[in-house]
């Protein structure tokens, strides 16, 4: 077991992903939730890159990872903007208080 194989990456990616999901589930702070999202995204990115590296998919994985990074940046920008606005209106960023979209 001298080389670092695909499995290692996948395990790391899986841990990141689970951490992200748990973070999203338990954090009431919107920023925390955003961090969880970032963790999930990066977990997935890691998988993309790993698959790209260890299988014959070529550069597709890397390209997708780049897309995800860009997407995450954009998402973070919008999400922060929402959070900021929400804070401006409600003086809190507790996501449990933001239930105005309920059916």
């Amino acid at each position, binding site marked *: 077991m001298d080389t670092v194989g695909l499995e290692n990456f996948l395990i790391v990616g899986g841990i990141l992903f689970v951490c992200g*999901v748990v973070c*999203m*589930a*338990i*954090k*009431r702070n919107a920023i925390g*939730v955003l961090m969880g999202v970032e963790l999930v995204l990066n977990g997935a990115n890691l998988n993309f890159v790993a698959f790209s590296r260890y299988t014959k998919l070529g550069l597709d994985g890397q390209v997708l990872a780049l897309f995800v990074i860009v997407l995450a940046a954009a998402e973070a920008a919008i999400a922060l903007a929402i959070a900021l606005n929400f804070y401006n209106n409600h003086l809190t960023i507790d*996501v*449990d208080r*933001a*239930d*105005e*979209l*309920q*059916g």
Partner: protein
Amino acid sequence: MDPKTGETLAKLLTAAWLLPLLGFAVEIFAGYLWSRRSKAAAYLAVGCIVGAFLCSASALYLYRQLPTIPVVHHEASHQHGKAGHDETKPVHGEGTVVAKEEEHHTDPAPRMHSFSGTHYVLAKFSNLKISIDWYIDSLTIVMFAMVTLIASCIHVFAMGYMSEELTEEYEDHQVHTSHGHFSRPGRFYKFFAFLSLFCFSMLGLVLAGNIFLVFVFWELVGVCSYFLIGFYIERKSASTAANKAFIMNRVGDFGFLIGLMIIWTSFGTFQFATRTEADGQKQLGLFDMVRGADGKLDLQDEPGKKAVLLTDDHDHPLLAADGTRRSIPYILLIGAGLGVFAGCVGKSAQFPLQTWLPDAMEGPTPVSALVHSATMVAAGVYLAGRFYPMFVPEVQLVIAYVGAITLFVAATIAIVATDIKRVLAYSTISQLGYMMLAIGLGGWAAGLFHLITHAFFKSLMFLCSGSVIYGCHHVQEMPQMGGLRKKMPITAYTMLIGVIAICGLAIPGVDVFFGGVAAKLGLPASFQNVMSEKWAFSGYHSKDAIVATAMTYAQLNPLHALLFILPLAGAGITAFYMFRLWFYTFAGKPRDQHVYDHAHESPWLMTAPLILLAAFAAFCACGGEKGFLFTMLLGSEPAHVADGLAAGATSKLALPSHHQIHDNHATAGFYALVVAAVGTFTAYLFYGARQFKLNPSEVQSRFPWLYTFLAEKWRFDDLYDVMFVKPVHIVARWCAATDRLVFDGILHGACRIGIVVSHWDRLFDENIVDGLVNWVSNVTYGAGSSFRYLQTGRLRQYVMFIVVGVVLVGGFGLFWLMLRIRPS
């Protein structure tokens, strides 16, 4: 012979025919606009009818100038036929002169010419053609002269009789309204207008050259009669009588129409005489088709298929399209004859359609004189005579029996009638029965002879009765009269002439004496003829001829002896009731002093026509069977009459020949005279002589049932009411009810079903179809609103859902993969 004569005659008679129409047109419109007091309409009407008479008289004169057709013997006439001798010459394109050359009798009366032509075509369908034709022979001309003469007299008489109508306020005492008496503007002009229209129709009927046209004018005289009977339109009885007359005539016309159908379909023409058209095409007439030149029927006597073969005017057989000979089944010929005769029955008021004529006396008396005695009702007899060649012996037998029954029934009713006009009406029916009888028995000329003489004396008597009614201020019941001869002598004695004429009384023995004297003096033959006849008024001669024919017929066909007994008995009854009438009215003491006191003789305007008519009633038949009138009629007698018919030739019935009748003449005349004398004497005993004191009312009370039966006119009216009138109304009500209940019921039922069904449809639509749709939407909505609760808006919850979802999907996916992988 001048070929133009036919044209001239036609023009004269057409003028005579159309003049009254012109009169009518002017009178009816101008009269409406003019004053009610104006007599102008009457002058115009009289002018027209007198003009028509002058035309007819000149036609008669002209016709007499024509040479009679030379007697051609049988063989010769056949040769002529074969050689294609030109018997028909076209005249002026339209008219054709037809010379009858069929005569071959040993001692024949001279034949006379007949002419026919067309005015214009009514309709033409392929080779079928119906047109306005005219046909002129001596019968036409005599009828024209008679009708126009009598009509002229009656028009003049009516100017006096109807003068009460010359007012703005005519009070009709027979009419009662809810607010007392009734008055209306006078209708003097209308009366004359209708009289004119009637004259036009009647003359058209006589001039008509085809049977269809006869039918046309037949109906027109009917409607004129309707207007004139119903002249007093306010009187319910008058309008009912008018309706009755018209409808009963229509019943007869129904038969006439069937006759027309048979003729039209079997022969393809309605025309009487053969004629050459303008385009040179020959149009065969009915008579030539049915009868050969000798007047015999060409019978094809196969059992069960008896038929008459048709020939053309030269006795050449007519062929059908398939080459067989054209024929008409004998039974259809009988049907055609009976059909046309049914029309005559209606018009001439013969049994069983006689009941309308007595009721028709509701019309003013001049109308009764002109329409309901002299002319229109005689039209039936005229048509029977005109159509004679189409009658086969069986039809003639029916005609004879109808005539005999009619003359007897009517005569018996006349015995008990008390209304002066009704007595005369029944007498008219009875006399018409005589004429029909004569025609049926083969006494063609005798029947028509009686028609002419009867027209004169009956119109005379009606005018006399009119004069009485006028003089007595509209009293018509004889029991209120009596002794009137002192008050109105002219009326009384002219009436007596009529009565003697109708009874057929004569002075026996004088004829022998004067005949001898005339022969001794060497007077001209015509004078000798006149002198050697019986001294009698016209009725004697004509009735004598009929009785002689009846007697001969009864001898030839002993089975039908009744046809002699009834007319003979009728002659006696006639004499009885006519003298009863005269004695009742004019002789004896006044029965109602009030009526008597106010009675007066009529003005000269009314008595002058009486005198003129009396002269004709007395002398028109002068010379009897050798006289002018009879020979004139004989000239147009159908060719087969003179020879009679042997039994078995056409049917089992035999018809008398001239010769046979002549042999019986003296005997029959004697019988008739005796019976008439007995009748006269009986009447004298009952009503005339006072010393015998035979009381009519005693006889009445002795036979009450008979009296009632006769007084109720043999109860024909009740019978018809039960048999026809009521059933018709019931059926009519049924029909109306069927429409209302059945057809409308079906329709309404269908509509109701439609409405019920649509109601159900609505329920179905609203509950089931709409329900389904609503249910679907409700379910969808409900599902939506229940899912709504999933959307809590809590972010972290969503994440949990995602996680759980992913886990579940992943779990199931794995499970599924394991299932897939395991078997391999």
